[in-house]
């Protein structure tokens, strides 16, 4: 085990896969010479050459589309979208193409691409450098979607995504890049897509979340433990397909559930989690299913007091958890 940052875990996963499999390559804006605007692809061009850490023209639909074409003939492209906000020009390639290639060809063709996109706020990025776009893609069968919260999951899920036979959207939280560190194994491993993870055990309330807010929940849980409230914290890790079993099991354990995410509330992943629970476990609930999410505004503003108002944090999460525990 070695302790590294979330961003280094992402970088290491790519570095190792480029090494292991000659069909893996990375493409995107500024991923080559510069090593990415956040540094996620640092060193890859130096080690593997220009073609395998490919600087592309400024055109996201082409980045996705070229990756899809390459994947159909046997490659394992990792397409980087500079910010998840800028994947929208590629929506048609992602939803109409990547998601449907296997299905429309009756399994004759496959599309094993990974699309990495930094998402989330709290970095003074303003409206177009802070968004959580997962709800746009979440309703599309054929896609897999992951969103790790720790270096271990970040590396393991990226390795799994690259080796997966289907298109995977990999949402990496910008705020976690350098603020979150953790242990990762020295040997090869993967985190299986479709499996949630219990990040903390507890019997009083269940918190179901993913991404940056996992950390707020964990911090809040530590404080609440002093008040005698023990929270059970489930990190979804994979958003599509959801780990239904893990969700239901965690709810059975406490009977009280708070769903937490940074993406705005209406139409978010939390709605589906809630719907699954009330479809399957309604009579085991001891409290209404609560959601604490981003406000329903188009995107978070850059002005510091507004960004702070929009973003969740330990205190806001703790308040919601306490309220649920006391219900």
């Amino acid at each position, binding site marked *: 085990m070695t302790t590294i940052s979330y961003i280094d875990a992402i970088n290491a996963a790519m570095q190792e896969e480029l090494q292991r499999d000659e069909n893996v*390559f990375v493409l995107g804006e500024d991923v080559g010479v510069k090593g990415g605007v956040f540094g996620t692809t640092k060193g890859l061009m130096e080690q593997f050459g220009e*073609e395998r850490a490919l600087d*592309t*023209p400024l*055109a996201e*639909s*082409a980045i*996705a*589309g*070229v*990756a*899809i*074409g*390459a*994947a*159909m*003939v*046997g*490659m394992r*492209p990792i397409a980087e979208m500079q910010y998840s906000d800028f994947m929208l*020009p590629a929506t*048609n*390639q992602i939803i*109409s*193409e990547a998601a*449907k*290639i*296997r*299905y*429309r*060809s*009756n*399994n*004759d*063709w*496959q599309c094993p691409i990974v699309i990495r996109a930094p998402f989330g706020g709290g970095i003074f990025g303003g409206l177009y450098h802070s968004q959580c776009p997962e709800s746009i893609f979440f309703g599309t*069968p*054929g896609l*897999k979607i992951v969103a790790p919260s720790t270096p271990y999951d970040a590396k393991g899920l990226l390795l799994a995504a690259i080796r*997966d*036979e*289907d298109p995977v959207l990999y949402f990496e939280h910008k705020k976690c890049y350098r603020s979150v560190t953790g242990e990762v194994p020295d040997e090869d491993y993967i985190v299986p897509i*479709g499996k949630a993870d219990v990040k903390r055990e507890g019997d009083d309330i269940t918190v179901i979340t993913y991404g940056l807010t996992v950390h707020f929940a964990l911090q809040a849980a530590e404080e609440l433990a002093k008040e005698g409230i023990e929270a059970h914290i489930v990190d979804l890790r994979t958003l599509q*397909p959801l780990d239904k079993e893990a969700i239901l099991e965690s709810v059975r354990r406490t009977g009280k559930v708070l769903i937490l995410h940074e993406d705005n509330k209406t139409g978010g992943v939390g709605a589906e989690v809630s719907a699954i629970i009330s479809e399957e476990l309604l009579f085991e609930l001891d409290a209404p299913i609560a959601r604490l999410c981003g406000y329903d505004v188009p995107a978070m503003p850059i002005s510091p007091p507004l960004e702070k108002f929009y973003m969740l944090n330990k205190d806001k999460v703790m308040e919601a958890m306490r309220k649920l525990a006391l219900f």
Partner: protein
Amino acid sequence: MNHKSSAVETTRHEQLGLTDAQVLEMYRTMLLSRRFDERGLLLQRSGKINFHVSGIGQEAAQVGSAFAFRKQHDYFLPYYRDYAFVLAVGMTVRELMLSIFAKAEDPNSAGRQMPGHFGSKRLNIVTGSSPVTTQVPHAAGIALVAKMKKQDIVTYASFGDGSSNQGDFHEGCNFAGVHKLPVVFVCENNQYAISVPYSKQVACESIADRAVGYGFPGVRVDGNDPLEVYRVTKEAHERARRGEGPTLIETVTYRISPHSTSDNDLAYRTKEEVDYHKGRDPIPRFREYLYACGVLSESVETDMEAELAGIIKEATTYADQAPFPQPEDTLKYVYGDESI
């Protein structure tokens, strides 16, 4: 086309390096495509199938392109009117019929997709969709792999004139241009995008004019002349193989049929206009050339028509009688891991 060439002189096709057998095969493919297409329209009118989209009038352009490529070797991203193209690179009429009947055995999609949405891994025909020009970046991606892996493979991608206004056309061409990729982009300019004529789609004189903005050559060619299309496509194919990058070819044709069986084209164009272009139908024109060269004769032609009629009939009966997919097949192949 030079109608005066006689059998003793070197023929145009010989000058292009094509044998008599090859041009006869070109003609046969055009005709087979036409007969299939006519049957498709008939089947739709008689209620046997729900929908047909036709390539009538574009066969010469398609076959001329296809013959410049290598079957089961190069990669193909055709668009929905490319029946003659896919027949030329190896798809069978039976397979096309299975597709228009939406039957389980259809190799393109097992009856999932509309007719004209081709795909066959065996034939290197890459699965296509309806939203136009998404295949242009895919073709660039496939060509990028050929370049990375130093494989002698050229990729073909076609699309309509109206479709060349989509962002993906621009982005895909630009990517291919920057990386000098081995790909040939073919715009089958049939003058219409459903009801919207060329003049309301674009303001440039020729779609081929767009190539300069991507740093590669653009060529406009008479799409009713299969040999001329072959010639320019062959050149483009060779440029690609030499590592000199993409070419954009505009084959100027005319969409003789309505847009699809759901369209009433006389609501937006005149019978006279259509008739004028029927008069320039590439098939009789090429037939005349082949007669003039002595490649085609009445007896060859009679045999050919009989053979094609047999193929169409057999394929129609086969596809008509073939089973539909099972209803629950709807749920298959969302992901590679079926347990999900």
